């Protein structure tokens, strides 16, 4: 061995006990679906079947909503905030204690690297429960009046890109504010939500406060349209978000929507270049780019484009693509064949429209769903890869000359979720941030999350905020 080849360092899959079949979690118990239908969930890194999952239809959703309603009226809404907080603290501690198990399960079901589930997804999920546990008895300071009230039953639908973290973003504030929950995890990533159901049992959470129904879009539609639901919280694509907005129009249901994005990462010529390169890499390759707030458009000042791209390509060549369970893997598998097809289709449109594609030499595994880290240069504002959300490890590089042009290009998008600014000059950062129409703006960093910091979008990137004091507003009705 003449070079420093990192030997395989796989995390053990035996840390987690995956059952061959899972039921629906309704009223504190796992139950079989009424019609007895099931579907399978697979490991996207090798296409092996992990488990059979219950498919919830209308009858099952009815049971779940009824259970949540009963828990709301009989137990949860009557319980003092401090008592609710104790359950949340307990859940948070159990998540920390079982973090390795959760990390392994998330990686197996989702395909993202164990390094990310271990260091980001699961610790942040636990942090969300800790943070909201603290709010449970302090809601009169949430900015919603002296005596804010919960909505009641929250229907929550979460995506497959951060299954456990999105569950925490949804369930923690709902429970802290006194709502009860029916949650539908994504069809391709239900396993950590079902393990979370076990955590609810372990924490002794009153039956019906959290219900988990597994299924596909039809299951989600039954849930959103259910008359017993008071509040809808959705994270996912803008297309589905719009459908939900239409479905609840004219009803009393309120909604928070976290939708797509096409984040601009703006690099000025006085930026700390090496750290900007790291930020660009994290912005587009974290979680294989399957991130709604990904920095998928790089806007670089034209006088440093060559230097930056050279460093960026060198850095991208170091990205280790492969087995997500290996502790040294940086880029894992794409979550599903459908998503992979979408990435391919959009990236191919970049070739057709005349942008220049570059990927490092990397060998992709033969089974599973994989896409190499890719950048396109020579991208114009009108290319599809500059406008549509690819949701994959594909970066579009555009240039600008003046700060005004950077703002114009950054804001020229139907989306407005995230943006990044790289500059050594504080005044320029503040000026830029003020002009950008994006819900989350990072300066000299990217993809930093904290439960105390609100997250959400402008324009077609969504309604409302999640996290922080602002996030509580989505689950509380003011008394005035």
């Amino acid at each position, binding site marked *: *061995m003449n*070079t*420093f*080849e*990192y*030997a*395989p*360092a796989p995390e053990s899959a035996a840390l987690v006990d995956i059952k061959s079949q899972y039921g629906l979690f309704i009223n504190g118990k796992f139950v079989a679906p009424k019609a007895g239908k099931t579907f399978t969930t697979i490991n996207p890194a090798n296409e092996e079947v992990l488990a059979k999952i219950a498919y919830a239809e209308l009858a099952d959703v009815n049971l779940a909503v009824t259970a949540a309603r009963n828990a709301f009226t009989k137990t949860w809404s009557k319980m003092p905030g401090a008592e609710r907080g104790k359950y949340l603290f307990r859940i948070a501690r159990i998540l920390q204690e079982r973090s390795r198990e959760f990390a392994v399960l998330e990686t197996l079901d989702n395909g993202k690297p164990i*390094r990310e589930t271990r*260091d980001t997804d699961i610790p942040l999920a636990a942090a969300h429960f800790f943070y909201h546990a603290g709010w449970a008895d302090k809601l009169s300071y949430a900015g919603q009046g002296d005596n804010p009230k919960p909505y009641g039953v929250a229907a929550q639908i979460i995506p497959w890109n951060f299954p456990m973290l999105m569950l925490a973003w949804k369930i923690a504030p709902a429970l802290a504010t006194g709502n009860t929950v029916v949650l539908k995890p994504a069809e391709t990533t239900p396993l950590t939500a079902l393990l979370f159901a076990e955590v609810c049992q372990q924490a002794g959470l009153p039956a019906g406060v959290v219900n988990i129904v597994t299924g596909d879009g039809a299951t989600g539609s039954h849930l959103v349209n259910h008359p017993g639901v008071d509040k809808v919280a959705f994270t996912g694509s803008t297309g589905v978000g719009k459908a939900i907005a239409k479905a609840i129009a004219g009803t009393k249901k309120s909604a928070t929507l976290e939708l797509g994005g096409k984040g601009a990462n703006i690099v000025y010529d*006085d*930026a*700390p*270049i*090496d*750290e*900007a390169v*790291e*930020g660009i890499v994290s912005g587009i390759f974290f979680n294989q780019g399957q991130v709604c707030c990904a920095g998928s458009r790089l806007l670089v000042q034209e006088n440093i484009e060559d230097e930056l791209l050279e460093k960026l390509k060198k850095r991208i060549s*170091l990205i280790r693509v492969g087995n997500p369970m290996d*502790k*040294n893997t940086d880029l894992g598998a794409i979550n599903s064949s459908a998503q992979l097809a979408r990435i391919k289709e959009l990236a191919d449109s970049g070739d057709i429209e005349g942008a220049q594609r570059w990927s490092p030499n990397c060998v992709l595994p033969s089974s599973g769903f994989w896409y190499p880290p890719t950048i396109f240069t020579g991208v114009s504002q009108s290319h599809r890869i500059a406008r549509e959300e690819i949701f994959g490890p594909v970066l579009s590089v555009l240039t600008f000359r003046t700060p005004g042009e950077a703002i114009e290009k950054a804001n020229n998008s139907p989306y407005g979720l995230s943006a990044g600014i790289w500059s*050594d000059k504080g005044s320029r950062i503040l000026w830029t941030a003020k002009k950008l129409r994006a819900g989350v703006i990072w300066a*000299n*960093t990217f993809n930093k999350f904290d439960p105390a910091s609100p997250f959400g979008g402008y324009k077609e990137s969504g309604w409302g905020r999640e996290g922080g004091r602002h996030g509580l507003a989505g689950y509380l009705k003011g008394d005035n």
Partner: protein
Amino acid sequence: MNSTLLADKSEASLKRFLSTLSPVDQVGATSRVEALATRSIKTSSKNWAIDLAIRMVDLTTLEGADTPEKVRALCAKGVYPDPTDLTVPSVGAICVYNDMVKIARTALDAGGGKDIPVAAVATAFPSGRASIEVKIQDTKDAIANGASEIDMVIDRGAFLSGKLGLVFEQIEIIKGLCGDNAHLKVILETGELVTLDNVRRASYLAMLAGADFIKTSTGKVAPAATAPVVYVMLEAVRDFYKMTGTKIGVKPAGGIRTTKDAIKQLVLVNEVAGPEWLDPSLFRIGASALLNDLLMQRMKMRDGHYASPNYVTLD
């Protein structure tokens, strides 16, 4: 490009050149090294890294209480770190104070270590607070006694007060004395430079002035070789190579005590400067206690269990 084209030795020219360097974002640099610290180095790659780290150790003793006997023992250990296992490679160099150079050279030559260089700390180590005449004589003595590597300290006071020309000139003079006889390592003492921007500027200043190696610290000031500092210095040698075609070495020193620490350093070298820096001619680790931990880990990899510390020798 010749490095003299980047800047001449005038104060204004040096200042102008250093101001063209990209700033370092402390938070970003720290988070990058934290991410690299999670690399998991196991089995065959761990064996390889341990042997490489042993070859990179500048086995050091820099105490007022050093005795000739202690230096001789250190030299013997440097040649055959584990006398019971001759597959263990020799260390990169023996690093001592000026007055011990001759003793070390003689001991190495007599003990099978003719190829192992003796490094001498010079130029009023560790503070660098002396006249240039004293620094010159210090260096001349070391080379005359057989040192083939000179670890000089920069005048941090001059650097921090903006007298870049003075720092440059002193390095240049010492480099001139080293000539073809000795390799010059320039100690920045990053614990006193404080910011990563200063580390980057001082690295370039030393490289422009003729350093063969840039070294983090004397070991007498804390913090010493922190990961972000080494990271910034590795970026500097990588980018300087691109500018000039000259490869400069990096030597972290101080605070690297365990195999885990050393392997983290090697991961940094591999992923920041690049694999071509994974060689004792371009990367050294200034350490004393580290060697024993590397030997213990090597035994553990070989035997499958940890041995008692009694199985490795004191220096």
